[in-house]
């Protein structure tokens, strides 16, 4: 006869596991349905392997904060609330930091890196401190794609990387829904077209059925 406590423990484990999964799904659905949509420009860089497994590794432009009140004497990483606002081109930019959620506007809870800056004289001695530099590390840094489409998307991004910086700027971005400090990736776009649709079109052209 199996002890009852084992069955009870298994039942509790099932409730906990399903609750965790359901919470993840519910939170993500809430953000996708009610979150503020924002566009984030992604940086086109050429690492050794941008495709790690089945996702695109994302790096973002426009991550620097306009100013950091300081003080900062050493490099440090903090977790803060970052208020976002679109710039003239319509892409999201961090505007202000706070330790508590701001009262208005979309905001994210994420890591912020702070670094002191100096100007040096001709003897390479630090002349005077400049305002600290602060930049944001967005948490949504992976875009999962189907394995057949991944190489096609990589090729499209590689072609953009081959252009000069001004020609390539702003041609690839992601849309993110933001709600209560949480951001969920919606889609990756290349030249205004969904990256997955672009890949599907290319695949159909090369393998017509």
């Amino acid at each position: 006869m199996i002890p009852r406590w084992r069955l009870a423990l298994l039942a509790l484990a099932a409730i906990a596991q399903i609750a965790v999964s359901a919470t993840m799904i519910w939170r993500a659905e809430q953000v996708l349905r009610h979150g503020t949509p924002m566009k984030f420009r992604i940086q086109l860089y050429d690492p050794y392997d941008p495709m790690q497994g089945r996702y695109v590794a994302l790096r973002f432009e426009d991550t620097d904060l306009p100013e950091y009140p300081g003080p900062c004497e050493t490099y440090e990483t903090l977790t803060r609330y970052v208020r976002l606002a679109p710039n003239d081109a319509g892409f999201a930019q961090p505007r202000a930091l706070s330790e508590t959620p701001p009262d208005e506007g979309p905001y994210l809870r994420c890591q912020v890196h702070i670094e002191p800056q100096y100007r040096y004289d001709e003897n390479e001695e630090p002349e005077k401190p400049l305002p600290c530099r602060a930049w944001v590390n967005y948490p949504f840094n992976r875009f999962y794609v189907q394995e057949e489409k991944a190489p096609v998307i990589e090729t499209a991004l590689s072609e953009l990387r081959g252009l000069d910086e001004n020609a390539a700027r702003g041609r690839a971005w992601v849309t993110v829904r933001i709600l209560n400090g949480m951001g969920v990736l919606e889609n990756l776009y290349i030249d205004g077209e969904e990256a997955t649709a672009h890949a599907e079109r290319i695949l159909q052209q090369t393998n017509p059925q």
Partner: protein
Amino acid sequence: MQARQPPAKAPAAALRWLYGELPQLEAQGLLPPGSAARIQEYYGPVPVSSRSQLLLAIFGVIGALQIGGGVILLLAHNWDDLGRPLRTLLALLPLLAGHTLCAWTLLRRPQSAAWREASATCLALAIGASIALIGQTYQIPGETPAFLLTWLLLGLPVVYAMDSTMAALLYMAGLATRGVTFHEPLTYWLLLGLIAPFLWIAEFRGVGIFRRWWLSAGLCGMLIAGVIATLSRRSDAPWLETFSLLFAALYLLGARRFRFTLSPWRICGALGTAGIGMALALATPVTRQIAAGDLFRGASAPEFFIIFALAALTILLAALTIPREPWAAVWLAPTVAIFTAAILLPHHDMRTGMLFVFGNLYTFALAIAQIVRGYRHNRLLIVNAGILLLMPLLLFRFFDAEMSFTARGFASILLGIGFLAANIALLRRKRAEGANP
């Protein structure tokens, strides 16, 4: 007449051997007539099918791992053509299937180790697969340490509910991976504490030797990973001191708990201690860097705590074990040397020099002792272990450019004479034993 004491629980293999010997012992008059029947009545029948049950459990676990892994690979294909709701359902399906299987096992086959192990393994893998697939489906940002922590905490109740060795080993593997990769010592030891009751019960409840061996091996790995997780925060941490204490403690624990089999603790302790001796003897830049760690300067609270706890455990075990098994003191020698050097020789170069000389002498003596011991007890494995320990040392010293040709030449000749003399002595002894059996 004194009331009969219940018999000690004997392994099935031992009982089978004993019952096989009894008729011969009676026939030769070594046991009174009727003793065989009374002894068999006392110990009871040999547990049937213990080997076949074990085989069933092993095959069940392997099958569950393969199926679970295959399902993960198939689902990881990221079928975005199916749409989000269907993918979400597929992500939850392994979890539901795993729980259904475990519940059925507890209700219908609670005594079957094969069913318990296979269903628990399926469920443990399904938990991780579900979380990962939901994250992929919704593009939820997540860091690996948080993912592993969630998986471990959700999987732990399955270990206790199903009394599953495999689920416990998966938990330990996941925890060790997280600890070694991401450090966070406090979290590591807390999570280890959560599985400790299961390991304690398995150790002292008289479970099968196979299960006990694997859980002990898992615990060895966990302790090593725990030391790495605790010390990895700085490069000049007291690695040498801490690992020498750990391996000495493991060896002594093995000597106390598993007396008649090669226990994983004893193996781990012996290999680790021999490895430390060899590392000191070879004195590569890496070992020099490790030996430069300062025991008393810059040590954090977790480092002090772990060294103090290991030192107290080692001293206690040594006091209990060495009077009964003096040979075990050999495995404490590196610990004593390392701490002596750390306390008495604060200067880095003097300390590394002393440990270099000690490492060479110790490794050489240990290797020779193993070869001799293996020869005396007819244990080829121990002889080979001694040779494996000796050969790299001799080769390295032969090609050591920091020693002059003259020094190396004399050392090689002396060693050669020593080996030949030992051969002659052993041959004479063998002939004498052959002449006087």
